């Protein structure tokens, strides 16, 4: 199993254990740590696909890239 996935699963399980024992703040800290690791993995997965596309002589269209950036920018601004 990928070490990052193992870490995420372990942290989530430990968070759940703390939650069941009435320690929600500890659980929340562990969940945020797992989220941080997962976010790194998600970013890296996306960038690996970008690398693969470049190696294959292709890349996303600028319209597509801009649409995705704009959508996520709007999503962040609208909070």
């Amino acid at each position, binding site marked *: 199993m990928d070490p990052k996935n193992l870490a995420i699963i372990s942290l989530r399980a430990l968070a759940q254990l703390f939650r069941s024992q009435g320690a929600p703040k500890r659980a*929340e800290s562990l969940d945020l740590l797992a989220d941080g690791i997962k*976010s*790194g993995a998600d970013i890296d997965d996306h*960038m*690996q696909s970008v690398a693969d596309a*470049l190696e294959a002589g292709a890349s996303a269209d600028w319209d597509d890239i801009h649409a*995705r950036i704009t959508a996520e920018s709007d999503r*962040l601004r609208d909070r």
Partner: protein
Amino acid sequence: MTNKLSLQLAGVALAALALVGLAGCAGTQAAYQAADTLPETAKVVSEHYYALLREANDLADAGAPDSFVARAQEIEREATPIVLSLREASEAYVAISTADNAEALQDALNEAVPLVSRFVDLIREL
């Protein structure tokens, strides 16, 4: 490729690699290393920014502190226009590969990379 352009590309690549750190980001490193030209680097930087924005949003949805969201919004306000400007500089260079257009694209990348780096740092600090 001219020597000057080669140096510029190497400079951007080094800055980008520093941006992602040298451990634990294999896919991100691979993307920056796969970019052989300034326009390809512009797309990689843009894609990296997109991925960071998406993750900042997902972390906010998952309950990240308000302070994280506020900092992400602050960085986004400054970074998005600059990252989006990479397209114009890149397309101008692709259309007419003059030294001036290369320099303009290089300047745009030099402006965008540190801002993307701030997003990397923000997510790492969480």
